[in-house]
């Protein structure tokens, strides 16, 4: 319980610090939102008017207080570019990025974990050398490039998947799966390779441990040694990596959403940064930061579930 409370309080403090950083860092960026919204051909009178309308003539400290007060009441403010409440815009986008991230993590686990075990199991054989080369490739290929290759192969040439857009899950489950499969896979490839490498290495390390020898001497079958003992101990480092990979997935989705023309958060983030849509950018970065912190929090809790011996020092 103490472990849980400690992790929870550090989670909350980090969020507060992040919120302050987000707000003030964006204030430092040059570029006047009113001018950017109206563009180079805008009338100077219009720009001045819009500045007043957007509240840009007030100091940044005042605006920070407004923002935080709004956040606490669940009001994220209004987007400068779309002139709509930020929460309305985010609600449209979150399902897209969430589907992408979740599917990509599922793919990572479903493909990465069994392959990792398999490679460790067949260590030294020809097939594992081949697979090792493949994982090295997987780590080094940039996801956006791989995305284009996937489109070229599966959408343009084979016509198996659509090249752009998405179908909501509620409308057509298989259609949604089809539209998210390639982009999720493009993001997952690098992560799968990383998971495979980690799992292989830890399994090989663990197999040399004394408890494995003891288990063998005890007469346990290889199968139950692997799944009952080695794997359980090997999953801790993999879990840590998975926590980091979630953050990576969210970052990867920014680029991949552009490649596959998916209207998700990443796509929106790029557009709102270039248009200096501060309320929207701040809410989005805060949201992403919270998700990443939340995942790490969950990972910390899971450590304890997998290995009850883990507790706080002192």
């Amino acid at each position: 319980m103490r472990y849980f409370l400690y992790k929870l309080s550090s989670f909350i403090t980090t969020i507060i610090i992040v919120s302050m950083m987000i707000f003030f860092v964006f204030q430092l960026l040059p570029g006047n939102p009113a001018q950017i919204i109206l563009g180079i051909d805008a009338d100077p009178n219009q720009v001045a008017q819009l500045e007043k309308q957007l509240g840009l003539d007030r100091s940044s400290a005042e605006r920070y207080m407004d923002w935080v007060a709004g956040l606490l009441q669940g009001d994220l403010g209004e987007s400068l570019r779309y002139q709509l409440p930020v929460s309305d815009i985010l609600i449209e986008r979150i399902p897209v990025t969430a589907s992408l991230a979740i599917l990509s993590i599922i793919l990572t686990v479903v493909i990465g974990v069994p392959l990792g075990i398999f490679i460790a199991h067949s260590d030294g054989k020809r097939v594992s050398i081949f697979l090792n080369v493949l994982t090295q490739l997987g780590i080094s290929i940039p996801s956006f490039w791989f995305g284009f290759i996937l489109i070229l192969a599966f959408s343009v040439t084979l016509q198996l998947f659509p090249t752009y857009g998405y179908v909501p899950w509620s409308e057509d489950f298989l259609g949604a799966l089809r539209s998210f499969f390639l982009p999720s896979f493009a993001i997952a490839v690098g992560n799968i390779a990383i998971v495979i490498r980690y799992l292989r290495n830890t399994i090989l390390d663990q197999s040399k441990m004394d408890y494995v020898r003891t288990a063998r001497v005890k007469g346990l079958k290889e199968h139950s040694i692997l799944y009952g003992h080695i794997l359980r101990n090997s999953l801790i480092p993999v879990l840590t990596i998975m926590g980091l990979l979630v953050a990576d997935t969210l970052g990867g989705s920014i680029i991949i959403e552009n490649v596959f023309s998916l209207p998700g958060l990443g796509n929106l983030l790029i557009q709102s940064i270039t248009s200096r849509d501060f309320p929207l950018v701040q809410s989005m970065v805060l949201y992403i930061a919270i998700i990443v912190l939340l995942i790490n929090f969950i990972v910390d809790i899971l450590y304890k579930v997998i290995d009850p011996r883990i507790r706080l020092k002192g």
Partner: protein
Amino acid sequence: MKLVSKLIYIMVTILLLVACSNSEDSNETATDSKSETTNQDEVIKIAMSTEIDNLDPYISAATDTQSMMDNVFDGLLDTDESGKLIAAIADSYDISDDGLTYTFTLKEGVTFHDGSELTAEDVLYSYKRLSGLNGEEALSSQFEKIEKIEAPSDHEVVITLKEKNSAFLAANVRPILPADYEEQSTSPIGAGPFKFQEYEVGQKLILVKNEDYYDKENIPEIDEVQFIVMPDSEAAVLAMQSGEIDIIPGITPQGLLQLGDSVNTVSGPQNMVQLMALNHEVRPLNDVRVRQAINLAIDKDVIIETVADGKGTKLGSNFSPAMDFYYEAGLEDVYAPNIEEAKSLLQEAGVPDGFTLELTVPSDYQFHVDTAQVIVEQLSQIGIEVKIKPIEFSSWLETVYQNAQYEATVVSFTGKLDPYEVLVRYVSDYQSNFINYENKKYDELIEMAVESTDVEEMAKYYKEAQRLLTEDAVSVFIMDPDRTIALRSDLVGLKMYPIQKFNLEDLKSTNE
């Protein structure tokens, strides 16, 4: 522990299921798309690189949004390919001799998409919103010049201006909206050739043909148009290759190369002016001889050839031949490349060994960055050492455009329908005159032009103003780059206009 292995088996099974269902499903869609092409309802899909900012045409500020939504709305007037104003909702118009009163007679039987008739009352409502005469902030500075607006009858509108302004006429292409309709931002209603059907945020905008369009000759042939938001240009090209996109406006030369002969193209000047702007408050650029030397050292043909792949029109002043009637021809060759003359001009100006020049370039625009690189090379021939400073466009707008903190920059100005809107940038007291050009004679010419009621006379003043910009070597006016639209091979009829718009009612398919 058996659990883990079981879990793995389950996951593998799910994966296999997904893979199988995928292939089955795709077979279905393959047959679907076949039946679609034989279907009578033709759906045209157009790739757009930016999202819609607002569906309300008075709130939207993005050019791309306006070019899409232009199909939903009509104004009192419209423009043809040469930039000439033509009647649309208005049947005819009359301007009083003092140039202050504009009388528009509306066509009878024009209806909005909701079936209601378009009358003078709707024009009043729309123009009051634009001009701020409804008691709120004016939405357009062009309409702020309106003193009063009246409707003597259901089909007649009389507008009185505060002062003479010949540029006001072109402002009447702005959409007319139904009076007191509050939902323009979510389900817009206009009187244009296409009806708004649906907008899936960040994904696509669907428009359908308006069977009851008042201009019977121009009822669209295409039944449905979908504008697909595709931020990545490479993705759009791939989608066109796979047949999921039918039109890409503003396609890059690389994209065109990739598509090869499988597509039709329409291209032409877009009434844009790309220039290397020089800040006259910076030494030694304040000296006209130095600016002339820079003009003489830059070979615009080389820039057009290397940067635009030869697809551009050479300019000599801040004006594109796309607006032929007001265009002063022959200025593009005033400063034919001449290194020797450039060097001697620099000598006269007291900088015989050249100087260093910082060239600020908006890095988001590869086109301008490439242009800057050619300029570096060309100016090094006369001893001017150019340093490129790449800067994000958002920052460019503030530091260069608003605060004029720069020495030189490469940028382009998009086309306007009226020469006044194009040339007013160089008037001494214009707020965004970031070039800091000051010439009383120029100011007078623009003022005379805007007050003139005779078109021939007006054109004469505007031409003289263009000549002045060239003689004073105000900046280096480079080119009007062509805009190219790629279309599916059976699509024809799309035209280029001096402002960015797609008149989709022009589009026809030769497949029957």
